[in-house]
């Protein structure tokens, strides 16, 4: 468990982090979300003890990172944005070195390393030079490094940045596996990633927490207005006007027109979205405008993020 209380970090006059507080429960995956320069990396660096905060406390399983750094750091595995890899070592040499650093007992080392190597799927590159590995493998070695010493908390800073889609999927899978018995904090500006793996999300902007909630709750909280997607064939203009005329619909816009298929976004005001769908269906069928696709649009994290950060 990590308790972060009122974290402040100044860089000169600039406040990179300005009063961030949140708690990460055991075995929870927390997404840490914000635009570039919002203070994500700074916060993570403070949590891991790399930087000291200007004020505020970080407690890792009850140990203050400033007062009992050794105990606190023991429980944290950290993958920084740039994985701290020695390119001139082989994977095994490197992981053994990390074991030395984290004071993993000699007796447990072999077993633990074998487990980690199997888990992050780097068995076949274990004897290769890290400098010769692909970016995806390097990232896995970075994660392996964070896993050494069995920390209860994993902090991953942008773990999928720069990877190709296959690798991203692999890494996400890996994170979900890890989440079973670790608390995980993942920072990202790739929202789908957070959506894919996180239980809860902390959104920060300009050094402050903009929102903390589970993803579903957050969506709900934001769903004072909901949206529908409507694809159809026919006269776009007439159709838009017709839909607009349906009671409860506050707006309708054409998003895409592809030859004679149009895609419209329908904004619904009020709470009874289901009723409105029937009305729209009948309006369409009445006018002989075939519906190609019709579904409700859950607010994406992009939208949540945009609406919260006020962009």
């Amino acid at each position, binding site marked *: 468990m990590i308790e972060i209380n009122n974290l402040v970090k100044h860089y000169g006059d600039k406040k990179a982090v300005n009063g961030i507080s949140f708690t990460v429960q055991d075995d929870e995956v927390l997404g840490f979300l914000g635009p570039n320069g919002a203070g994500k990396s700074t916060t993570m660096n403070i949590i891991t003890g*790399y930087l000291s905060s200007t004020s505020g406390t970080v407690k890792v399983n009850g140990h203050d990172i400033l007062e009992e750094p050794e105990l606190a*750091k023991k429980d944290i595995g950290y993958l*920084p944005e740039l994985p701290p890899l020695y390119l*001139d070592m082989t994977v095994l040499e490197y992981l053994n070195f990390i074991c030395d650093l*984290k004071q993993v007992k000699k007796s447990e080392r072999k077993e633990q390393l074998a487990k980690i190597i199997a888990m992050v799927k780097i068995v076949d590159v274990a004897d290769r030079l890290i400098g010769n590995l692909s970016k995806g493998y390097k990232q896995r070695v970075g994660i392996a490094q964070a896993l050494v010493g069995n920390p209860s908390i994993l902090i991953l800073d942008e773990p999928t940045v720069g990877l190709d889609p296959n690798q991203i999927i692999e890494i996400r899978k890996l994170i979900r596996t890890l989440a079973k018995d670790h608390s995980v904090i993942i920072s990202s500006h790739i929202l789908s990633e957070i959506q894919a793996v996180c239980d809860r999300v902390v959104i920060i902007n300009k050094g402050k927490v903009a929102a903390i909630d589970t993803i579903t709750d957050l969506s709900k909280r934001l769903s004072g207005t909901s949206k529908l997607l409507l694809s159809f064939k026919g006269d776009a203009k007439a159709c838009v006007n017709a839909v607009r005329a349906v009671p409860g619909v506050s707006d309708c816009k054409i998003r895409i027109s592809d030859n004679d298929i149009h895609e419209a976004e329908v904004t619904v005001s009020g709470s009874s979205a289901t009723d409105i769908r029937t009305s729209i269906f009948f309006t369409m069928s009445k006018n002989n405008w075939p519906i190609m696709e019709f579904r409700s649009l859950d607010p994406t994290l992009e939208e949540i993020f945009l609406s919260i950060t006020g962009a």
Partner: protein
Amino acid sequence: MLAVFKREFLSYFRSPVGYVAIALFSFLSGYIFINNFTTGSVNIASEVISLRSFFVVIVPIITMGLFAEDKKRGTEILYYTTPIDLFAVVMGKFLAAFALYGIMFVNVFIHMIVTKACNGIVDIGAWGSVIVFFFLAALFISIGILASAITDSQIISAIFCFIMILVIQLLSTISSLIGSTIGAFLSVLGVKAETSNAVGEAIINGINWLDPFTKTADFRYGVFSVAPLIFCISFAIVFLFLTFRILEKKRWSNG
């Protein structure tokens, strides 16, 4: 500490750096030894003393990457975020460089054996200069480590270390230069000759006090004194501590 020592020491031999440094040292020490040998008189102490002048080249080679490379590659974050004391990191790297120096020095031990085999003398002065050599090596390596910690460029670190050691090697020249300049300056200002001389001399003596070479000069003649060794070690600790503080600064500074 052991972890860092192990990694850094082995990394000398994973890359060409360690081999090249040892090869260089073998070549230089061999050259000096053979030059002595052909004259029919081999004084190991002289050889070791001559080898001290190569600190200025060899120390930067072996220390330049120690911290600079970590900074550049981002691996230094490991030392901040794992439960290891930063000072232990500094000591580990220091000991690795020191151990490499020890390995280089095997050359001189071989020369000693050859000398013995030729009925030459390896006297107490030779051992004295060996002891001094290692204490000076400790001092200069600590300077090299400091140089490596202040920058993320190996080249800058090497140059800085080179200049520092060069200045120390030329300290007696520099001191008399500064001392006489200030003395002359004072006498120009109208200070009495005795006073300006005394001031100049005091400055020379003050700067010379810092010169580890003068301090340890007597060892090669078999005169062992503890004070110069304490001097070397304590200043090595100062430089290592400074390195530690510079690393730690990263935690709280604006950088």
